[in-house]
């Protein structure tokens, strides 16, 4: 234990999505030393896997990768990826975080990112970065823009054939690598733990994730992404180009029956955005959005919504009661319209996207920080009328979706103020 890795910094940021990256940069640009701990193998969070982002339709990579690069080049920022925060204790005004570096089964210092291990690996697995569409190897650099460019081995599926070890020019492969503890000391903590989407199985009436052509919005993002799994929009069951696509709004929000009564804030806009992108790549496809209320409340959002309507995207105010499928796996929606006729009807589409909501990315109460959570597991602020980042835990601040759903512009804005609270707190210590 004596050679345990130790890091001492001004501030610890948990999570490296857009909020975490931005708050780290804002602090480091004002002279603080920062460490970011990210559980996934790359920094960049959810945003890096999106296609284009509303309302400007910039490619998500164009907005995220420069920040990822700035963080990785910043002289005052250290990043620990593929590492989990196990506990954070505060004593005499100093936080001590117990972090575990998960084994990638390679020597991270020696690896030159040549990808030869990946090239020779004979094991193909569903690629979770592509939402299970497309394949990856059992040892792989997670995606093109990943930072760091280090492969991760999947020990459960590796067949120990040794091909990677033989191909590696630097003799980096280490089948016996163990998790390594890291101790981080910091004066302040920013929680930027982001979100997970509500599960596809949240609503049992919606097919319980068993209908192949009822997909998640993240999968739709990958289908639309320029380097997505198929390079074009195809539906999963048979590779057909869908001619009729539907969005089911509030499929994981505003619904007490699934324990998510709140509005997830982003789903209206991402559905509209995906619909606009789909009508660009599939000009003859019919696209319908079934909604309760369209919540286009941000700057430029209403105009974005109006553009979508002008492009011919159908907006139907209707609650979807049930989703089944026909023998060709075409999803069938049972709907009740609130405009036009009132009789329930069944509508067939060729691809359906369930607009899932957002739930907390991590249960931060397990760190033992004293930060309180609200009823839904998001971090509670001590007084949101005075500060957008101060929590009940001294020296603990929250940024981005850790406090509740918000979109990218709101998260970016939020991050700076969290950084400022941390700076102010540290100065007063």
């Amino acid at each position, binding site marked *: 234990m004596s050679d345990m890795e130790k890091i001492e910094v001004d501030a610890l940021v948990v999570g490296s999505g857009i909020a975490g990256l931005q708050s780290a940069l804002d602090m480091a640009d004002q002279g603080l030393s920062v460490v970011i701990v990210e559980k996934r193998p790359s920094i960049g969070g959810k945003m890096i896997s999106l296609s284009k982002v509303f309302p400007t339709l910039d490619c998500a990579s164009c907005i995220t990768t420069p920040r990822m690069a700035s963080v990785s080049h910043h002289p005052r920022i250290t990043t620990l990826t593929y590492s989990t925060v196990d506990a954070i204790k505060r004593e005499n005004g100093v936080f001590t975080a117990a972090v575990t570096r998960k084994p990638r089964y390679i020597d991270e210092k020696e690896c030159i990112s040549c990808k030869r291990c990946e090239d020779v690996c004979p094991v193909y697995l569903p690629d979770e970065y592509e939402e299970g569409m497309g394949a990856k190897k059992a040892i792989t650099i997670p995606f093109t823009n990943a930072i760091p460019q280090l492969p991760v081995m999947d020990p459960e599926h590796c067949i120990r054939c040794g091909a990677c070890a033989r191909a590696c020019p630097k003799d980096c492969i280490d089948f016996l690598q163990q998790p390594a503890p890291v101790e981080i000391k910091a004066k302040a903590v920013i929680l930027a733990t982001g979100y997970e989407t509500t599960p596809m199985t949240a609503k049992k009436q919606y097919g319980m994730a068993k209908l192949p052509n009822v997909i998640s919005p993240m999968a739709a993002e990958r289908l639309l992404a320029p380097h997505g799994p198929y390079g074009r929009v195809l539906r999963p069951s048979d590779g057909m180009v869908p001619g009729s696509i539907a969005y089911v709004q509030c499929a994981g929000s505003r619904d007490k029956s699934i324990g998510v009564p709140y509005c997830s804030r982003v789903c209206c806009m991402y559905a509209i955005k995906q619909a606009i992108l789909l009508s660009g790549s599939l000009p003859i496809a019919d696209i319908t959005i079934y909604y309760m209320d369209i919540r286009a409340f941000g700057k430029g959002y209403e105009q974005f919504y109006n553009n979508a309507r002008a492009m011919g995207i159908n907006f139907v105010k209707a609650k979807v009661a049930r989703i089944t499928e026909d023998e060709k796996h075409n999803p069938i929606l049972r709907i009740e319209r609130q405009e036009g006729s009132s009789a329930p009807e069944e509508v067939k589409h060729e691809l359906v996207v369930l607009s899932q909501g957002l739930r907390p990315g991590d249960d931060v109460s397990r760190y033992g920080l004293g930060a309180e959570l609200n009823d839904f597991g998001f971090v509670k602020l001590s007084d949101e009328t005075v500060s957008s980042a101060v929590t009940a835990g001294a020296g603990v601040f929250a940024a981005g979706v850790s406090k509740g*759903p918000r979109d990218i512009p709101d998260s970016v804005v939020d991050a700076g103020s969290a950084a400022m609270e941390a700076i102010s707190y540290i100065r007063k210590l």
Partner: protein
Amino acid sequence: MDEKIKEEASKDNYRQEPKVGVYICHCGGNISDVVDVKKVAEELSKYPGVTVAREYPFMCSSNGQDLITEDIKNLGINRTVVAACSPSLHDLTFRGVLQRAGVNPYLHEHVNIREQDSWVHKLDHAGATAKAIKLAQAGVEKVRRKDPLNAIRVAAEQRVAVIGGGVSGMRAALSAAGKGLEAVILEKGPRLGGKLLDLGRLYPSGEEASAVVKKLEDLVRADKKITVHTDADIDFVGGFVGNFKINFKLPGGKSQQVKAGAIVMATGYEHYKPYKGEFGYGEAANVLTLPEFISLMKKLPAGRLEYGGREIKSLALIHCVGSRQVEGVHKPQADGKINDYCSRVCCTAAINTANQIKEKYPGVRIYDVYRDIRTYGMMHESYYEQASKNGVLFFRHTETDQPVVTSDRTGHNVKVKDVLTWGEELEFKADLVVLVTGLVPSDISLIKSQMKMPSSADRFLQEVHLKLRPVELANAGIFIAGAAQYPMDSTEAMASAGTAASKAGILLAEPDIPLEPFVAVVDEKKCTGCGLCPAECSYDGALTMSEKNGKKVAVVNPALCKGCGACVAVCEPRAIDVAGWTLAQFDAMVEAIAKE
């Protein structure tokens, strides 16, 4: 002022043989779906002076940047052309790459083949490819003629001026002071608190707005780093990043000046004022706006809801008045434009008020007439639910079927074509009509025109980029806090204001600020002293005539010059050039593009 401006001596006077690296970005399909990027790279690699030309999915990513670094190290590349998106997005990114690799960052040229090519020539792949080649070749010609430049460094006042003393302004000042900067709040009204002073119980905390104001004001008053001037009538804002000057008058006519390194615009909003006759406003009695109604309710005792001496037993809330307006349906505003934006806060504010009415006056019938209910915040949905439980009746109309209010002495008649009952024409009586008015920006036309600040189509202050630089104005050193940028509630304003302070903190992290060196440079030997150029210059003090060595010549103040080139255009002897954008460079670019 002159002594404050130190132009760093050029450290690298080298004129190495230009070795140009050209990098074509796919922009993840944004470019490569239209432009044949492989062909562009191939053509460019044959172009004179080009050492290497490559294409890559995302040049701005870390891997993309590393390609350039490697070429600088291994091939001795000393000038770069990146053909990608607009330079406004990533010119700085690539200059940073050069800098880290030890090359003068201004020996980079960013060529826009996205906004100016692939996005506008979607259907003409061959034409777009040919255009990309030409543009990149012109970039090569330009970069070959570039000289190393150095940032102009300006000593900065370590002080932030916050214009507006509402909750955003107070938060911005507190955050700036928290980081150790001095902050000065200039509030035009007699008190701190801004618009919140008029509001009642706020969502989501349920606190009185005045209590929220007091909490922030107490913190502000206790902070020795913050100076507050109320009743401050600003009559001049000038200067430049690091050295802004704001003149203002206090009651009694006393003039004062604040010098600041950065300005935070926390100028807030106004409530939309309905025109005379809009749903009966200003004509019929008993038609109020929501803020007017909130002021009224604050004063009324519990028990009996009363207006104009009459008991109000029923009340209609009409949403989206002055927001989400539709061309052809709504009357345009004074500037000829409609307010097509959503004002974000009004749905929750209206429903919050409806619940408070029901709490205080349970017998009052409330009709809520809306298009979409946008209770998006964490707990806001529960207010909506509570309103339903409280018996508030909701009517939903479409954008083209606006509700109609007719009034007589007995009250109002509200007609709605209600979507929730499949388009039924419904009609109800209401003693009071409350118009849920949207937000419009405050009138800050004087400051905006003096500093040439940009507005968005919605007339609010325009940020540089919603995601990359969301609280920065294009004017260096000026930041936006709160609803001056777009409608937001007071909790959202806390985030925005804190971040505005953070960006000011980053700007003022060093005692001096680097400015872009793209400013006019006068060749004194060629200057004839004709005096035409200062007349063309739009920036006070940037270009003046003065005596040098017994000769009258044009003199540039590099801190004030914006590099617009207006002076260049009128200079007949070609004695003025903008550094980094010289006429010789333009000549060469035009040649390259026009060449067969």
